[in-house]
């Protein structure tokens, strides 16, 4: 039994993450303040855009990789539904090679559901290297850095970019990543110079370094992990993978808590037994 212990634990974990998906259980989530603030920031941009002659873009920074897409994809899908429902034009940019193509797939999927079109609703600036330098150069002269979109069309010929003058026309930066260090340059350069609101999506384990930035007002909102995605889905009224995944995550968390408690109770019992037998 002892030798087979890891196998039983693996089996229990396997069942706890697969059964809820098959049973399609979903839960209502209490909305946390950081997620509500993210939602409010998008609403503010939509409201401001209605009063402007030309709309400001939202910039979706796609810095996540396949490893973290189980948590990040549902967040991005919910946010894209929100952008499209409020007619907010957006651009995709990434500093991780896989990010812009992953974001493009999601945008195409949401656009198909809502009847939107690439070029008119959004465009993809593609993958860029050297994050710090690129962001600083984009602030000085945007068109030197971004010359064409992901499909090779000159950027000034993409309809959604027609009125775009530079980074001052970005009304919101939405940074999605599994690594907190990729958020920092947006705060240091874009928020510091232009006061552009920044919202952030990250994995559950990367939430802790984000709180100081939220409290100091350097970012305006964030959603963490699958739980953040489920809450945002609720806010936009589009339940999806986030809500579905919460059941699996709930059981997995309960299993881990149960295992920690069981191991410590066992340890405590054997300690007491040893002490009782001591002469």
């Amino acid at each position: 039994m002892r030798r087979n212990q890891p196998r039983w634990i693996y089996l229990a974990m396997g069942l706890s993450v697969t059964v809820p998906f098959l049973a399609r259980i979903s839960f209502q989530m209490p909305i946390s303040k950081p997620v509500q603030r993210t939602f409010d920031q998008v609403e503010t941009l939509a409201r401001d855009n209605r009063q402007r002659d030309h709309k400001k873009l939202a910039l979706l920074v796609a810095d996540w990789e396949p490893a973290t897409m189980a948590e990040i994809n549902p967040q991005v899908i919910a946010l894209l539904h929100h952008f499209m429902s409020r007619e907010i034009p957006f651009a995709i940019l990434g500093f991780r090679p896989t990010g812009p193509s992953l974001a493009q797939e999601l945008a195409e999927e949401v656009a198909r559901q809502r009847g939107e079109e690439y070029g008119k609703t959004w465009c993809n600036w593609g993958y860029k290297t050297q994050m710090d330098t690129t962001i600083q150069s984009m602030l000085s002269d945007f068109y030197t850095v971004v010359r064409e979109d992901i499909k090779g069309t000159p950027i000034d010929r993409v309809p959604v970019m027609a009125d775009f003058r530079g980074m001052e026309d970005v009304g919101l930066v939405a940074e999605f990543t599994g690594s907190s260090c990729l958020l920092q340059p947006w705060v240091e350069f874009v928020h510091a110079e232009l006061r552009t609101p920044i919202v952030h999506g990250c994995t559950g384990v990367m939430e802790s370094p984000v709180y100081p930035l939220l409290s100091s007002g350097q970012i305006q909102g964030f959603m963490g992990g699958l739980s953040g995605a489920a809450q945002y889905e609720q806010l936009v009224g589009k339940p999806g993978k986030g809500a579905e995944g919460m059941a699996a995550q709930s059981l997995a968390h309960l299993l881990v808590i149960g295992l920690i408690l069981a191991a410590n109770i066992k340890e405590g019992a054997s300690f007491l037994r040893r002490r009782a037998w001591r002469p």
Partner: protein
Amino acid sequence: MRRWVITFFTFVSGLFYILEFVLPGQTGTGQALRAAKPHVGEAIMVIAAFAVGLGVIGVCRHHLRKVMLRQKGWPNSVALLASMFAMATFKIWEKYDPPEVAQRLHDLLFLDMYNQLTVTVFSLLAFYVASAAYRAFRVRTVEAGLMMVTAIVVMLGQIPLGDRFAALLRLPWTFTEARLWIMSVINMAGQRVILLGAYVGGLAFGIRVLLGLNKDTLLEKNP
């Protein structure tokens, strides 16, 4: 000679960005630096592209040698080289002459293999975490006890069932609230301490690199 060349270029590049940030944009020098910034940025990207090329050459040399000398683990090196060249070939083929075959081969390698393998490796973490929780998380000290209680509260606060437990136990607070308090008060204080320490250290390190005092940057061995 090499030492002086590296020190000179490091110092000038660092000084450029410092002056560009510090000097007001309205002054002549400030304006000139600001206008030059995108071009300096482009130059840095070109240098970085060379670094990627050098990296590829380095990887190839290391693994080709391993394969030719049949060193331990050489089949892994074959797999690495084959994957690297296949991915590069199909991506370049697809970009410059996009026939359907190139697109499909690229998608097969990237979407159907690379993405799925990465996801699979990452998802294994859940199993290791569960096993480690059982085998390694022992409360033997007060600190470990505090850590366990905090971890359990944060985990319960992350899931919707947590608040139902709180209601069942008739607790005066929900686990969601407790988690938010832990994250935005206790965790934030700790994070700020770490960040401040790291940034002060980063500043000191930056000055050492800029002045050419850091021997690692100059490709010299420390004594």
